[in-house]
């Protein structure tokens, strides 16, 4: 569904990614793991058009989207849930959902928003509250709901579990697996909680210092003792 070929990218003069090749097959979870500063977030930002692609190309369903502004990338059916600041804190929960469905016709936005509230019942109580007052876990749920609002073909999820209590983080990751299992959603998941992400993932990439060190099945990476020990903090049994 999404093909990235020979991508060099960064911000201004800062070069972060060096010749990345990634293939996101349709209907599965592709996980990108790697240590801090490896360029995981930059990869997603480049797809969305907020970081600069110096070389290489990004194809979505065969159409080049390299360097398009964010709102045009979004119009192709890609939704993005950033790691930080992933809700509009000053807007109410309902307004957040309405903004996430900005491209939909008005009546469809209403229907989709109430569908999201059914899917994430925890949000229903806070519909008119400002999103900035939600707890970390509720905010993450709202961010996922916002990602789903525009009926995307592909969801880019950045570090969903960061800063959450372990039990809440686990719940959020389980929620991601549910998106694939129940909605057949294609997901590109960037995650620091590598072990848990790889457990639900289908395909996996290990990104280190802006280069791909491993590409293959998620379980294969999880069970590769050398890589898992070096980069993923997985202890040997």
């Amino acid at each position: 569904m999404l093909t990235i070929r020979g991508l060099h990218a960064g911000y201004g003069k800062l070069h972060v990614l060096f010749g990345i090749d990634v293939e996101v097959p349709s209907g599965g979870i592709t996980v990108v793991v790697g240590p801090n500063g490896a360029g995981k977030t930059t990869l997603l930002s480049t797809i969305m058009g907020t970081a600069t692609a110096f070389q290489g190309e990004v194809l979505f369903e065969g159409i080049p989207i390299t360097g398009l502004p964010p709102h045009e990338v979004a119009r192709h059916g890609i939704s993005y849930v950033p790691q930080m600041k992933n809700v509009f804190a000053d807007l109410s929960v309902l307004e957040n959902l309405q903004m996430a469905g900005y491209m939909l016709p008005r009546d469809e936005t209403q229907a989709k928003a109430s569908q999201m509230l059914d899917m994430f019942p925890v949000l229903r109580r806070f519909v008119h509250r400002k999103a900035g007052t939600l707890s970390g876990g509720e905010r993450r749920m709202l961010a996922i709901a916002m990602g789903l609002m525009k009926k995307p073909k592909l969801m880019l999820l950045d570090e969903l579990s960061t800063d959450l209590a372990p039990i809440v983080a686990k719940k959020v990751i389980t929620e991601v697996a549910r998106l694939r299992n129940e909605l057949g959603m294609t997901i590109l998941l960037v995650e620091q909680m590598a072990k848990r992400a790889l457990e639900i993932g289908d395909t996996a990439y290990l990104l280190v210092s802006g280069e791909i060190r491993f590409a293959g099945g998620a379980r294969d990476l999880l069970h590769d003792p050398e890589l898992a020990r070096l980069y993923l903090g997985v202890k040997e049994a």
Partner: protein
Amino acid sequence: MMPPWLASGFIYASALALTAGGITLLYITTRTFNFAHASMATWGFYVAYTGTALYGGSPYRYFPLVFLFGSLLGVICYFGLNRPLLRRQAAEITLMMSTLGYDLILLSGIQMYCDYLTYTHKLFARRVTMSVYDFQLGGTSAASIILPLIAIAFLTALHFFLVKTKFGVAMRATIENPVLAGASGINADAVYLASWVIGGGMASLGGAFMAMAMTGTPVIGMMSIPFMFAGAILGGLYSLYGGILGGFVVGLAEYGGVYYLATRVGPWVLGYRMAIPLLIMALTLLVFPRGLAGVAWRSVPRAVIGRLRGVGT
């Protein structure tokens, strides 16, 4: 009947509320401190003056045209300067300096236009007293009642636009988080353009207001730009409503302060009138470093009552 200083103060304060609000709006959307606000305001005055002097009627009927003209100047600035610079991710200082350049261009245009009015229409265009075109309302100048009402009506409409319409909410979303707004499919370009349309219109309308309280000259906007910025800064710079309130406070403080000091201390104070609003801004920021918008107003009554009770016991 309103005392004359208060009547003029209301007019000037309404003008500063609009212009400071416009400066704040442009800053929170496009990161641009718009120095061209000065000459955009002056152009607003000249549009109102041209209409009134050449085509007759009260100055108020030309205000919609004034607003549109200001919007046009804003749109030119956006497409000609601001957008190309934003696309190149220019620094804030570059964005600001570019508007200073635009201001000088607009100012030259004003000077040429004044010559045109002088030579072709035999108007005394460089010193204009717009209040002669005003009428009396309840023993006081109509402007001191009508202009604050127009400002309130306009700002109320702006508030409803930002809260109730889809595009208005999208503007607030972009102000808060441009990346997420873009990812939601909101075109940031359209939001920036809308801010220049609204902000430019507010600048020119403010300029036309100003000329109802003071002598209209080619530098009427330039003389007032420090106070427009003072209002925006007093408001905390990050809140549109703060900027509007800040502008109003600065405007009223200048007229009120001058009147008070001139009657108590002596008329020599008039020479230092420009220092008064800036002094008030500095003092306010010393007490509330984040500006008026940064004050938790809802907890103020409780804090004051608490302190009074503390004193009483």
